[in-house]
């Protein structure tokens, strides 16, 4: 691990280790005592990275990143939030158990430094089930789910691609001022915001104390975005289709624009 400092010429290493019996992030400098390093990180290293970057100055950082971290970092980089010159990735391949828990379809980092790649999880049954439902059934299902929301903002604060400091959803403009639950629009607006950047890490769902199947929602919308615009979040080459012109695409005529 410490090879990262030499090979990648990083000044710091962002990783996780055991602290007081729990997994905790740690930012190491060259020569620091590494302690008990952990690979079963229960949060997004990308998220931590974004928070520590302002304090690093000109230091280069190497970060232990799973595939989802890697994709989130790509989205951050596209938005100018990270300087790619200053971030190196130490690829961490998730094990079969982790992949299963996340119902992950894309578990293997572009370069693997730690662990071994396993197969992607089979198609998400929940997504298929939900998509098979009729409109009224879907509405019934999601109404019941959204009603459970405590508006704790766990989904947003644990999300690696929710960048805003102050969330729009904290204001009454778009969610009626009725306390909890926050109204039907809340998770839909979040869906729109995440449509061109969600990396399907599943943190929102894991963070949700009300067990709302947010990852399933994310996946369904990502699928639509891919179908409609061919865009996949985390692909470092592609700019969000929501921000670009239709250049090169067939001009949509007068018919069936929506």
């Amino acid at each position, binding site marked *: 691990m410490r090879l990262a400092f030499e090979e990648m010429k990083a000044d710091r290493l962002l990783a996780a280790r055991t602290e007081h019996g729990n997994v905790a992030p740690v930012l190491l400098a060259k020569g620091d005592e590494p302690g008990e390093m952990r690979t079963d990180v229960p949060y997004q290293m990308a998220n931590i990275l974004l928070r520590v970057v302002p304090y690093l100055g000109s230091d280069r950082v190497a970060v232990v990143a799973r595939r989802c971290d890697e994709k989130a970092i790509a989205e951050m980089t596209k938005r100018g939030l990270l300087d790619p010159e200053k971030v190196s990735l130490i690829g961490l391949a998730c094990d079969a158990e982790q992949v299963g828990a996340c119902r992950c379809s894309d578990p293997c980092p572009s370069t693997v430094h730690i662990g071994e790649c396993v197969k992607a999880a089979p198609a998400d049954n929940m997504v298929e089930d939900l998509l098979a*439902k009729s*409109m*009224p*059934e*879907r*509405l*019934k*299902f*999601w*109404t019941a789910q*959204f*009603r459970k929301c405590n508006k704790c903002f766990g989904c947003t604060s644990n999300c690696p691609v929710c960048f805003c400091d102050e969330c*729009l959803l904290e204001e009454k*403009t*778009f969610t*009626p001022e*009725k306390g909890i*639950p*926050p*109204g*039907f*629009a809340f*998770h*839909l*607006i979040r*869906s*729109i915001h995440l*449509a061109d950047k969600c990396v399907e890490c599943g943190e929102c769902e894991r963070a949700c104390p009300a067990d709302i199947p947010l990852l399933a*929602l994310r996946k*369904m*919308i990502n699928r*639509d*975005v891919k179908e*409609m*615009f061919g865009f996949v979040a985390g692909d470092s080459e592609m700019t969000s*289709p*929501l*921000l*670009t*012109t*239709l250049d090169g695409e067939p*001009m*949509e*005529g*007068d018919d069936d*624009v*929506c």
Partner: protein
Amino acid sequence: MTGFRPTILAFCCNWCSYAGADLAGVNRLQMPTNVNVVRVMCSASVKPEYVIKALSQGIDGVLVLGCHIGDCHYMTGNHRTARRIPLTAKVLETVGIDSRRVKLDWVSAAEGDKFQQVITDFVEEVEGLGPNPSKEVRF
């Protein structure tokens, strides 16, 4: 569905579709009374949040009307509209609000008759869909 009069919100861009709506008025083209127009400068300024807010709070349909692609007063403003609004409709459909309640179309300043047609057709379509079920959703 007899007697159901949907409430519809329409965002019209100042340069083409609002002008087209004005032209429909000048030409006294008769159409259903359900549509309430909000003027915005460009269809691209219509936040998906507005559409979601309206439809999740019981508005029966939302129309977003802009200049034809290529004719946008702001060059490529409506290119963004062309992506955002269909996606918004998809998101709504995912959770059970029929995407046909969101309509994006292009109406130029010269198309008073098209404005009339779009309004008439959309009202008819939404009437067919019945009241927005989100109206019944109580939180």
